[in-house]
């Protein structure tokens, strides 16, 4: 009971702050028209309210977050439907399906398109909708089979080059860059970034890393003995990479937060 009471008081306070800030905000607008001022004041205050509601999730789940989330999901779904309708249905489908519909939506009718072929996906689409009818719902699997079969066929070959062939062929790197004998190597050894030592070291790391990484992903053999050592090195290389990528990303994520903070304190409260 007390928590319910506290929640109500909290809601009331938030509503009050919201109202007050809206009024002050709309009074300080730049525009001449008072309607635009009031509207913009409301909108920015509302945006701030939503921003804080989302941040409140960090403390715990609460009605404000639930509200912002539901609103966001609803608006996103509505936006997506509109977008899908205008870009795919009107932009892609109507111009090839019917002249009168094209005229209705003011899109140019495509004279030369192959009109018969467009009925095949329409049939598949209608079959898909049989899901909504319990009796013949199994028919929809035909459409699913088409989609799955087609995408599997596309994927069977499409990424072979970028993911497999070029990755393998790019791994043929010189392991002894500019090799002029052991004597020369030792006498010129240095930690300079563009030195021979670093170049050779880097290429060895890449070569050994790829090898051991592949060994790590081997399913048929247990990680024991020499095989285990190699897979161990493989996982180390993977972990160095993951750690480095993680650490590198921190800066970008903090920048996102700074953007939100400046919105709250700069654009809204104008105290920064």
């Amino acid at each position, binding site marked *: 009971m007390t928590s319910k009471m506290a929640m109500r008081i909290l809601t009331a306070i938030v509503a009050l702050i919201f109202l007050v800030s809206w009024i002050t905000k709309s009074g300080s607008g730049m525009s001449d028209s008072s309607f635009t001022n009031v509207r913009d004041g409301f909108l920015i205050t509302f945006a701030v309210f939503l921003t804080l509601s989302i941040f409140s999730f*960090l*403390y715990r789940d609460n009605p404000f977050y639930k509200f912002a989330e539901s609103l966001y999901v609803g608006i996103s779904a509505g936006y997506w439907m509109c977008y899908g309708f205008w870009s795919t249905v009107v932009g892609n489908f109507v111009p090839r399906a019917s002249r009168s519909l094209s005229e209705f939506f003011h899109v140019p009718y495509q004279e030369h398109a192959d009109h018969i072929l467009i009925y095949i996906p329409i049939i598949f689409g209608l079959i898909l909708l049989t899901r909504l009818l319990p009796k013949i719902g199994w028919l929809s699997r035909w459409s699913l089979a088409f989609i799955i079969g087609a995408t599997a066929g596309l994927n069977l070959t499409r990424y072979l080059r970028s993911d497999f062939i070029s990755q393998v062929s790019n791994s043929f790197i010189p392991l002894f860059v500019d090799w002029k004998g052991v004597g020369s190597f030792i006498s010129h050894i240095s930690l300079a*970034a*563009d030195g021979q030592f670093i170049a050779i070291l880097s290429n060895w790391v890449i070569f050994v890393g790829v090898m051991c990484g592949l060994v790590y992903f081997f399913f048929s053999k247990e990680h024991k003995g020499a095989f285990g050592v190699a897979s161990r090195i493989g996982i180390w290389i993977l972990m160095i990479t993951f750690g480095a990528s993680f650490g590198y990303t*921190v*800066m*970008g994520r*903090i*920048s996102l*937060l*700074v953007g939100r*903070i*400046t919105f709250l*304190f700069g654009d809204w409260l104008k105290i*920064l």
Partner: protein
Amino acid sequence: MTLHDRLLALDRRWVFGVLALFVIIPLTPMFSNFSVPVTPVKEVREIYDFIEGLKPGDYILLSLDYDPGSLAELHPVAYAMLEQCFAKRLKVITLTLSQTGAQMVEEAVKDVADSCKLYHGFTPERGIDYVYLGYKPYPGLIILGMGMNFRIPFPQDYYGTTLDSIPMMRGIKNYDNVKAVINLSAGNVSDYWVADGNARYGVKLALAMTGVMAADYYPYYQSRQIFGIIGGMKGAAEYESLCKNPGTATEAMKVQVFAHVVIIIFIIIGNLAYFLGRRQTAPTQESR
């Protein structure tokens, strides 16, 4: 419950709260005098030293090829560098190869020129101290064309004045007449500058770019195809510090440094707690 137990089970809301605090604090006026000591790395310093080493009247070309989306990271460099060039009384040729950047770059160049009055007591004049050539599409061809003559891709500047009637452009034909090209980029334009500008015409080239891109271009720095590189917010702050002209990058770096220190301290605390806990529980495990 001992201290390390508490630390190990620390509610993450403490982490959130402390982080939020240390992101907001450096932005408050309290910290306006506080500055992060920035140690410029070699590849940033080289660009600064190069520009400092130029004589008044030397020409330099700034290709500001970023869009408003990457403004936060690259604007600080553009401002600091332009001001440095103006203060050195260099002749600056500016242009953009980013479609959405044309107006933004114009405003930036004007802005710096106007503010020079305040800090250096003279106002660089358009046409005498700097030109802004504007935007043209297809960066690769523009860069190649300028290698022949600036007038091929840019017969006129942004404002429609033919280059021959601009005082500072008289007798300035192509890259041979500029000391260096500095490319500030948020996209693949840098590839064109390296491949077409540097490789084909031997332009002395330096790059400033967003943090995400920078790591990919270090090989060019290593092979000396470019003589310097400024990466992201951090590079921008370093350049500002070299110019003794702290701006928005220095400001944002305050937040970054605070946030990173907070996170690292948390990691250290977590590890200390872990090791303390392990030392205490270890004997009981043995006796069992």
